[in-house]
């Protein structure tokens, strides 16, 4: 398993803590692997011919397109990628007048800081130094957190497969890139709406196009900084939100947002035991104090009762003594009186 940038972001239970926290400071300065590739999608050139869809299916061995290429009714609905269509082209602006319609190709954006990689509990995603984000199906347990997290709705899952379902997404033709070829869609596009090259070079090219044709483009390269930047970048002449992009997307990388809370975990693990033991001790002490107070009260009550009893006993003894004395006196008197009477007769 190659060590990737993802491994540097830490904050969880167990071994990850020791591996990560020492290097956490370098994440902020990491600009990305130099020479990594990207693709530039110029929507002002896209005419919706869908050659990219056909090529992608051929390269990846997927079933052919369902709607034929020359049937424009496919654009009546806005589609998304599926487990058999790793890329689709949508028409976003349908000009009634002579202005050309606006199309855009959707696929995995191969983000610089992919949130799918961050949220995968099995570490099944890998951001390669060449640029593409790879998925390793042999590690995946199918929780679909990545499908849930993707802000570009790019991932799909093989729900039809009962035992070996995989996440399906554009791979940026990683194998072809390693051989020095271009991704299938880039080669297939007849209008050159997809340009493949080093990401830094593509940004330069994009700025140059904007400079040369300021009327044609909006002065913004989508994907240059959005959510930390993406490998697929988009140029457009219509506002990006009309192309189903840029809805609340900021420049802060998603992994940072997603894992920010995990920093609390070590605090909970380390502070809670002391805190809770303290509470336990307090409650025990409370009980002990209550018990001793109770005992004191009982003892006091007992003592008081005893004192009372003693007093009563003493009084009774006194009375008894007095009674006895009186009885003795009476008996003596009687005896004397009897003795006197006996003496007289």
């Amino acid at each position: 398993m190659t060590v990737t940038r993802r491994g540097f972001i830490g904050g969880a239970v167990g071994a990850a803590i020791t591996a990560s926290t020492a290097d956490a400071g370098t994440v902020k300065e990491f600009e990305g692997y130099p020479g990594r590739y990207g693709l530039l999608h110029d929507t002002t050139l896209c005419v919706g011919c869908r050659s990219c869809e056909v090529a992608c299916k051929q390269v990846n061995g997927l079933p052919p397109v369902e709607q034929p290429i020359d049937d424009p009714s496919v654009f009546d609905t806005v589609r998304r990628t599926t487990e058999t269509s790793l890329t689709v082209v949508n028409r976003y602006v349908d000009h009634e007048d002579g202005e050309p319609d606006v199309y855009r190709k959707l696929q995995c954006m191969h983000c610089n800081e992919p949130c799918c990689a961050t949220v995968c509990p099995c570490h099944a995603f890998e951001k390669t130094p060449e640029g593409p984000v790879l998925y390793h199906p042999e590690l995946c347990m199918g929780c679909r957190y990545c499908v849930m997290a993707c802000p570009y709705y790019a991932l799909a899952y093989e729900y039809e497969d009962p035992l070996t379902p995989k996440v399906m997404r554009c791979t940026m033709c990683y194998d072809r890139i390693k051989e020095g070829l271009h991704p299938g869609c880039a080669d297939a596009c007849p209008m050159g709406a997809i340009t493949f090259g080093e990401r830094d070079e593509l940004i330069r090219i994009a700025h140059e196009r904007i400079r040369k044709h300021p009327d044609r483009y909006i002065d913004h390269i989508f994907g240059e900084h959005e959510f930390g930047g993406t490998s697929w970048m988009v140029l457009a002449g219509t506002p990006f939100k009309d192309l189903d992009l840029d809805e609340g997307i900021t420049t802060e990388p998603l992994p940072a947002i997603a894992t920010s809370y995990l920093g609390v975990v070590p605090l909970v693990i380390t502070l809670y035991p002391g805190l809770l033991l303290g509470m336990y001790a307090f409650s025990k002490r409370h009980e002990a104090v209550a018990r001793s107070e109770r005992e004191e009260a009982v003892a006091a009550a007992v003592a008081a009762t005893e004192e009372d009893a003693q007093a009563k006993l003493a009084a009774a003894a006194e009375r008894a003594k007095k009674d006895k004395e009186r009885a003795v006196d009476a008996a003596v008197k009687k005896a004397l009186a009897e003795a006197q009477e006996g003496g007289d007769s």
Partner: protein
Amino acid sequence: MTDVTLDAGPSTGKTGWLTPFNLISGVILIGGAAILGVRFTHGLAATTNLSNTYPWGLWIGFDVMSGVALAAGGFVTSSAVYLFGMKEYKPIVRPALLTGFLGYFLVVLGLLADLGRPWRLPYPFIRSAGPTSPLFEVALCVALYLTVLFIESTPPVFEWLGLKWWRRLVGSMTIALTILGLILSTMHQSTLGAMFMVAPTRLHPLWYTSHIPVHFFVSAVAAGLAMVIVEGMISHRAFHHQVEISRERFEAINFGLAKAAAVTLAMYLAIKTVGIALEDEWHLLATGWGAWFLVEMVGFVLLPCLLFTVAYRERRLVLARVAAVITVIGIMLNRFNVSFIAYNWNRPTNEIYVPSWMEIWVTVAFITFAVVAFKWIANHMPIMYEHPDWKGVH
């Protein structure tokens, strides 16, 4: 719905097991097993309405997320009794712990049904760990907490089996286990909420805040308390013969729980309001989603909070039970909102997710399984009462 063979001790089986309860639950369980069979032979597509836009549905929204929240009664009551010294709640600790254990077991069952390859559930721990993932942390904590709950559930077993040495052993671990349980619960209850922080563009701003973890934890506490009341409501009637404590004592416990639930719900409402104020989202309350949010907040948080307060002040048990049921539904509603209702709120309406009848049946089957297990355990082991050999012992 009492069982005629109900008494303290092993069932005699004399009147047979063909009772209405057993029949209905049997049908549900067999049907659930059959549907799971279809799931594993024909895939999730054949049994669920999950889609690529809605990868998480009822099995995650209810079985995992609501299940974990509603099983929170275990750590709440055990902490109250063992850590904070509220000994008067001791009689409900065991039922609450059992509810908790079965609840978390239900979570695991739900996961096994929902995962694409459930036999790979241990992969994050044994093959390839993704420690940056909130789900990894949840999985680890839930696995550990299930173990803790399991151990905490063994005392009645050992008492039943007469294994005194084992019983003393686990009894000595109570404080440590309770502390561990509270730690683990704090982490995974809140991280379940933190899981959604990765999708700021997909979850509606009224539900998405950077404080989701805190919201989830506080609501879980409230859910746990409410669930204990609900469970007590059912158990008290079903296991009436076993219960030793007096009616007054039982009611006093419930009112104490109601008071705690009222305070917790009030706190929850407060932090939700502060959350809206911080993000300046007042104007969102005037939208359709805002109205739905207010339904959740007013109808299922504010209302039970008020009802709990009244129940406690006026000593009316019925109100407390009504409030508890509303709270339980409210927690489920909140988890559903976060996982598939207010999630993808900005997608076109033709893409929304509605659970299929098979998903609902399987969920009901899981719940039935937990109820049946609870019933059997409570009938055979000292859950509702104290074993005479161990009366008054920790």
